[in-house]
């Protein structure tokens, strides 16, 4: 049975913050607002044949997805929070936790900064797999409004999500395969899965 223990009482610095920095969120939002990237795309696809429009849109979103994640990685490392520090320390100690939690953090930063959500629904975050859902997506809404249903129904923006998710993992040294498991065109949400290769 534990005896009375005399040890220093834990009192942590009051300035510890466990939330994402608002300034970081605003900076990413301003640079990667879905409305603006779709506005850039719209003139490029205007009047194009459907297949060509789709090809252009997919390329546009792939590029957007990579830049969006690169910026999230850059700013996410610049604006740290205590949860991230704890994760880094735990990953260093256990040698295991980097996958999927370090990339997960940047994926959450990217989506929370730019989409109309307060939290990102995670469907799996285990040793070899990671997955998440996008239920309320501004990108697809803007695509419909600015480029029309014909292009929107092709869901070219999936390339942005796939590229961003892959980037979050490869930039942290993980070889992964990213797939889309559900589409907001056929159902109520998009869902993406990341699986560690060779696992």
């Amino acid at each position, binding site marked *: 049975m534990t005896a009375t223990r005399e040890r220093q009482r834990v009192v942590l610095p009051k300035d510890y913050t466990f*939330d994402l920095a608002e300034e970081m969120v605003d900076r990413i939002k301003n640079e990667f607002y879905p409305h603006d990237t779709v506005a850039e795309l719209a003139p490029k696809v205007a009047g194009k044949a459907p297949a060509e429009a789709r090809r252009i849109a997919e390329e546009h979103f792939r590029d957007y997805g990579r830049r969006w994640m690169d910026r999230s990685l850059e700013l996410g490392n610049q604006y740290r929070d205590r949860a991230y520090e704890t994760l880094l320390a735990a990953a260093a100690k256990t040698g295991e936790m980097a996958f999927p939690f370090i990339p997960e953090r940047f994926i959450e930063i990217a989506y929370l900064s730019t989409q109309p959500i307060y939290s990102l629904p995670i469907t799996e*975050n285990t040793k070899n797999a990671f997955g998440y859902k996008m239920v309320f997506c501004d990108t697809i809404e803007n695509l419909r409004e600015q480029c029309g249903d014909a292009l929107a129904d092709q869901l070219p923006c999936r390339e942005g999500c796939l590229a961003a998710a892959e980037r979050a993992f490869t930039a942290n040294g993980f070889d992964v395969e990213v797939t889309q498991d559900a589409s907001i065109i056929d159902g109520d949400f998009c869902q993406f899965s990341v699986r560690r290769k060779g696992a």
Partner: protein
Amino acid sequence: MCRMCDSLGGGGTWYLNPKNYSNRMYKLREPGKGPTTQLGNSANAGASENAGSAFARAVEAKANGELETFNGIIAEMNKRALMRPGAQVVPLHEVMDVLDMGMPVAAMMCICRKGTRACEECSLSEYSCMGLGTGMLKWERWPERYRGGVEFLSTKQAKEWVEYWDTKGMMHMLMQEGGDFVGGLCNCDYPDCGPIRQRIDYGLYAQLVKGEYVCFVDWDKCNGCGDCLGRCHYNALKFEATMEKAHIDQFECFGCGLCETACPRDAISYLDRKKIPGLAKVW
């Protein structure tokens, strides 16, 4: 356990489904909402014991000899909690499967024992509780809830740690605290564990649901050595002196498997509760 298997398990055992351990790391503050200044009830094991709670009224009635009142309150509590279990017993071999999923696992002090025995555990060999999931990355927000600190473990360390407690005679349970998310893995014993006690002393079934298995003694293999005796927290395991064999009451057994892990002759095995007609609904 229909809801558990059908909606959470996806057809299989619900606690082996990785979805039930998934959680986000961050949440943006909704406009007008400040930081959390109070811990939710689910994180405060003592909340259900507070004066004025249904449980406190039930105990008071029992202590005053008013059994009808006691039974009424307990029945009402059971009805409310039926579809929202607090915890379930899980045998060691399946705890290992759970730990293989690799979500952040952090050993910490037992909040029940902090209350019932005023214990202040602050090292890995004392911690008997484990927090699961990304929420553990923010434990420092509430050092009093995690008094004595936490220790993040690798899968291998976590498995060794659970085996250590199994050897010491602590049974294992997964905590969902009424939600769809498994937030903890406890190693527990009577009487300091809240859920065990609320179930076996007061009949609060949903606080601790029996395991998916029932333990069975093969009398051809059991030589009556008695190594398993004393490990059962549920009064299910006895020594049948005239037969010189261990005896398990299938209706009392919670399927925790502490007897099985102690048996040097593999005389005890796990039967699937759902496949035994008379036990399939005994949770």
